[in-house]
């Protein structure tokens, strides 16, 4: 049981998938705050292509939960206007791969509205978007564009790796007054995935972090969690890669300390630095492409803050610098074998 869970020890919990946990977060916030609205393509009557908003329109009505035209720029642009009015919009972009038409509204508008108006207007919006591969989605349903957001000043970028964090982080994001990009690793929607795609999905009901309080709680932003304690090396990961790294540690027998970043930017540097100074070795892992990926920033931060403590070069395991292919998905995906080999290199250096 982690720290936040202990704080919530008094609350009634239920096994939830990540989809159910996200839905529960929106349900809780729609109930608590009359300024919360949820909208996007297919999210209204149908409840979203991944079912994250199922039943919410029926419960809260069509003016709180509704369908939007197929226009990501329009969805985010309207959300910016709603935020300026005083609402807390929670728009959904159906796949992270589709956010590009909304880039101007995210980068030039939502992220900078507080700054350019010296706080007169703000965009307290949380943009949910499923990301990542492993579902045979091809190059337009598999991307992990987090680095395109972490580079933008004024945005918060968050990615949960389990139902408990997903609910607590989504509530914290909706309550936060800054614009938040909330990336949901869709391969984790129904269960933790360790990269062994040949195995059947293990549902979240079999995992401790699938046990989720029914009511209101938050997981703080800018706070990483130590998913697995270890002494031989520090692994910086987030989303699906947390479980791939856990499998790599198990299969190599290397005692890795796996840090689940949860908030990518702004991030919890203290937890990272403390761990690297302890283990003296570091491996950075993400599913997104390699060059100028978020891992490059993580490596730079570790170098800047821990260089004299390091006993080995920092290793980086990522997706290849290619579009996410369809048939060759598992060649692209950085599975436990590739991650484990990097662990080996880091401890043997």
């Amino acid at each position, binding site marked *: 049981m982690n720290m936040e869970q202990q704080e919530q020890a008094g609350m009634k919990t239920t096994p939830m998938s990540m989809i159910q946990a996200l839905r529960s977060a929106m349900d809780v916030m729609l109930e608590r705050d009359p300024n919360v609205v949820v909208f996007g393509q297919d999210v209204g009557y149908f409840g979203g292509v991944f079912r994250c908003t199922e039943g919410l329109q029926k419960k809260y009505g069509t003016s709180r939960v509704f369908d939007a035209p197929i226009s990501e720029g329009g969805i985010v*642009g309207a959300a910016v*206007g*709603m935020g300026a009015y*005083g609402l807390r919009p929670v728009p959904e972009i159906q796949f992270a791969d589709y956010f590009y038409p909304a880039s101007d509204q995210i980068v*030039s*508008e939502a992220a900078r509205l*507080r700054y350019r108006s010296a706080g007169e*207007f703000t965009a307290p919006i949380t943009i949910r978007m499923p990301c990542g591969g492993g579902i045979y989605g091809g190059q337009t349903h598999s991307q992990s564009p987090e680095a395109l957001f972490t580079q933008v000043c004024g945005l918060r970028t968050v990615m949960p790796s389990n139902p408990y964090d997903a609910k607590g982080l989504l509530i914290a994001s909706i309550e936060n007054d*800054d614009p938040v990009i909330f990336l949901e690793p869709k391969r984790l929607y129904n269960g933790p995935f360790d990269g062994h795609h040949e195995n059947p999905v293990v549902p979240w009901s079999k995992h401790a972090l699938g046990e989720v309080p029914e009511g209101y709680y938050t997981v703080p932003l800018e706070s990483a969690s130590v998913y697995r304690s270890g002494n031989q090396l520090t692994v910086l990961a987030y989303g699906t890669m947390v479980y791939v790294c856990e499998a790599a540690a198990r299969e190599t027998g290397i005692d890795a300390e796996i840090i689940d970043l949860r908030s990518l930017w702004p991030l919890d*540097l203290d937890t990272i630095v403390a761990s690297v100074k302890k283990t003296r070795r570091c491996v950075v892992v993400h599913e997104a492409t390699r060059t100028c990926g978020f891992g490059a920033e993580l490596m730079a931060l570790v170098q800047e803050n821990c260089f004299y403590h390091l006993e080995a070069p920092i290793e980086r395991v990522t997706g290849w610098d290619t579009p996410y292919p369809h048939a060759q998905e598992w060649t692209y995906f950085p599975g436990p074998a590739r991650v484990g080999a990097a662990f080996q290199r880091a401890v043997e250096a």
Partner: protein
Amino acid sequence: MTTYEPLRLHVPEPSARPGFETNFSYLHLSPAGAVRKPPLNVQPAQTSDLAFSLIRVLDDDAKAVGPWAPAVEPSVLLRGLRTMLKTRIFDARMLMAQRQKKLSFYMQSLGEEAIGSAHALALADGDMCFPTYRQQSLLMARNVPLVELICQLMSNERDPLKGRQLPVMYSVRRAGFFSISGNLATQFIQAVGWAMASAIKNDSKISSAWIGDGATAESDFHTALTFAHVYRAPVILNVVNNQWAISTFQAIAGGEGTTFAARGNGCGIPSLRVDGNDFLAVYAASQWAAARARSNMGPTLIEWVTYRAGPHSTSDDPSKYRPADDWKHFPLGDPIVRLKSHLIQLGVWSESEHEKLQSELEIEISAAQREAESFGTLLDGHIPNADSMFEDVYKVMPPHLRAQLKQVGA
């Protein structure tokens, strides 16, 4: 077998370039008073004639004629005249200050003063405009203190935007004036979102979206029309067609052989094309659109036909791309002269009173400039301190920005 000529690309051109005279027949004007006024609940399909004609109230003799002539007190019109004149004199003063390098940049609204000045009269406290950079008349209509505006223009120590924004990119929430982005068209869909929020909350406020002819080519414009129609948002969608987007003639934005008002009809939005240099027509059309929005009848699109009499900005030289004396020949004239003539004809105004008002405003504006300059100008280096550069990126400054602030050593 039919033979065809080789295909050729059509690139629209204005009727005249420097050294020649523009043929303004492309504007397709209607005589004052000739265009009908439909009921508020008109069906969009029944406004297609209005999107291709031109609503005008003031005729060549400065008389208010036809169904759109509003019942309006002369005192309101006098207020409007004052707003227009104040805007024009303010622009002229700030242009001069820019040449003296007291500000880095300026954008005047010469020739377009009627649109914001009259439109503001149709809006109520709490309504929100999402303007472009050429709607300073909205601020003048709301009597925003000039010192505050000039401090923004001079990026000085009293700049309410802390030196972060280019001059004229104001943000004045209490005056219903949304922060100007500088990226074009983005505010158009935001205005629709704001209006949707007002409807979601069963509020009574409406929003007013602003865009130029050039930026209607952006997807945000079309998206805004779709969203406004779909959700019947209480918004007025204003397209200021001043004929020029920097050096680009409005035909390059898609105005050739059609109108910008016609875009609204295609989206199911009742749409008007209005003489933007006719204060009374702007007033009447704005009232009509605002009443529709407040009555849950949804959006109205209005194309305001006007002419950008000055350069795009202080960085532009229009004599390079259009006839230098174009504005003199623009058939819709000068909005200030037209309203002044109307008021004189009504017997409530005179040339001498006009001159007196002009001198009063010049004195008021010079005094405001002097006061603003006492807080510094970009030239004398009295700018907001470096610390403030790191504020408002996030609501609470995160550790990485605190560290960078420390490195600046401010």
